[in-house]
């Protein structure tokens, strides 16, 4: 195996699964998968899952988790829609939403870093709290913001480039590029990897563990709120349980992408392909003529098979290191 393949085996494998799945769907329902329309639809929905999954990938590499992001998506969308409805100012609405997301991130971060509550528990708590808060603030009612369609922010964030390509695709690609720079070339990303690998060692070597964790939760919060804004713009409306559908899709994207829940190992490219796999699954299943009941079952099978392949690949890989180092079989 050459070094490129060895180093990037996880994203390469995930991309391979994606292509294989696409091949199966194209054969089983060529009418759907050989026409452009379905891809436009993919490009309008997958970026939202993907952006959430990118931020979550960093958090999981650092051995943390955030269960509260669906509630933050809803809160961000609400703040955006409410401010926009009241002031008609896109900038104010966007700023408000991102600030709300950052505050949610700080809340999670404080619970985890200063109160030392394990993040899975802390963020289950904040999910209920933030979800409840949003519902109370919105009085349980949906908001409609049809005027937003005439605003520049709509064109900028979810407009159709050349009347075809949804702008959110470019935003998602920009995000993955920026986060990749951060993860693979910046000292912040190096710290994230080491904290996930061995937090004690990282601390002993002077890595600012607490600050890094707090920043990761803030990043996750801001990204979730931003996705809330994207969804509200795409739909020109907001409803109280807007973020809920993302929970499982986003986690599945991250894990199909080969990020280890044990921390210290994960790639954004893997997550990107993982999000694409999750994104095309439902359409593929339905256009293959299977009933909607099958969706979850096939999701489950895909996730499990991916996890098994990643795990096998990793063991095999360790074996090859051993051979390299000690000339043992």
């Amino acid at each position, binding site marked *: 195996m050459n070094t490129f393949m060895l180093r990037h085996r996880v994203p390469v494998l995930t991309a391979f699964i994606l292509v294989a799945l696409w091949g199966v769907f194209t054969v089983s329902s060529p009418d759907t998968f050989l026409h452009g329309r379905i891809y436009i639809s993919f490009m309008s929905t997958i970026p939202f899952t993907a952006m959430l999954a990118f931020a979550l990938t960093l958090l999981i590499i650092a051995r943390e988790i955030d269960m509260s992001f669906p509630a933050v998506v809803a809160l961000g969308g609400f703040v955006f829609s409410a401010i926009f409805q009241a002031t008609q100012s896109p900038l104010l609405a966007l700023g408000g939403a991102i600030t709300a997301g950052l505050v949610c991130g700080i809340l999670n971060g404080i619970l985890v870093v200063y109160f030392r509550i394990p993040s899975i528990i802390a963020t289950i708590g904040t999910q209920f709290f933030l979800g409840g808060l949003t519902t109370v603030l919105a009085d349980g009612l949906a908001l409609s913001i049809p005027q937003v369609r005439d605003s520049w922010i709509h064109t900028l964030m979810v407009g159709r480039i050349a009347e075809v390509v949804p702008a959110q695709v470019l935003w998602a690609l920009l995000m993955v590029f920026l986060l990749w*720079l951060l993860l693979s*070339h*910046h*000292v*912040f990303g*190096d*710290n994230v*990897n*080491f904290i996930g*690998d*061995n937090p*004690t*060692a*990282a*601390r*002993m*070597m*002077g*890595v600012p563990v607490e600050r890094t964790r707090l920043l990761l939760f803030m990043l996750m919060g801001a990204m979730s709120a931003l996705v809330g804004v994207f969804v509200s713009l795409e739909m020109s409306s907001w409803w109280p349980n807007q973020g809920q559908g993302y929970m499982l899709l986003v986690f599945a994207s991250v894990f199909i992408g080969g990020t280890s829940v044990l921390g*210290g*190992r994960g790639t954004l490219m893997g997550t990107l392909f993982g999000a694409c796999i999750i994104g095309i699954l439902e359409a593929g299943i339905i256009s293959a003529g299977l009933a909607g009941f099958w969706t979850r079952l096939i999701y489950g099978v895909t996730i499990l098979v991916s996890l098994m392949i990643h795990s096998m690949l990793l063991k095999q890989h*360790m074996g090859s*290191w*051993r051979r*390299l*180092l000690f000339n043992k079989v």
Partner: protein
Amino acid sequence: MTERVLELTGLNKWFGPVHALKDIHFSLNRGEVCALLGDNGAGKSTLIKLIAGAEQIEDGQLLIGGEKVPTHRYSVQQARQLGIETVYQSGSLGEQQSVWRNLFLGRHFRNRLGFIDYKEERRQAAQLLKALDFRGVGANIDAPVSSLSGGERQGLAIGRAMLFDARVVILDEPTTALSVGEVEKVLCFIETLKSQGRACLLITHNMNDAYRVADRFVVMDRGSIVAEYRKSQMTQSSLQLALLDAVGRGA
């Protein structure tokens, strides 16, 4: 004239009601290996944590290279910048990260914006590990640390201290749980550190290892330094007896 690289005066440390370190006066000279001996709970680990910046110094003075260090802001980062590197017992390494990346953990070649020059780091790591001539570590610097043996891990951590040209290297039980051959390698590394003019502070329970590499022995008991010997004054067996006597004092 010996050059004093590290000096602690009037150091006290409390953990709640526990008086963990009591009025410690301690110093290290250039090119000197000092072994810190004593029972578990004597305060050896606390002392090195304070020097390494891993625990806050609340009372007492710290001088590094003759200069007073403001202790309220003293941290691991600052300690490392002032030339104090620590090799911890459990190996302060990231298991899944590669050998060369571990050398730069917490201390990277980076530009003003915080972007890391990995290429340069890898080149320097390769150079260093080749110079160390440590077969396992040097063989494949891209291998993850999880593939290294215990001795190789200690070697890597000691290499880190050399790479950053540390003045003081603190080693916390570097030979514990190693095979005979590996212990030998680690002791050779300590001798190399010494010959390079670095000061070493070594915690160990193994008298053979201590006697072999150290020039000076400092005995701690219940938070105080209770005795101090020079190697020139002692044979290994007299040191052993003196140590038993010192830690038994007041019992």
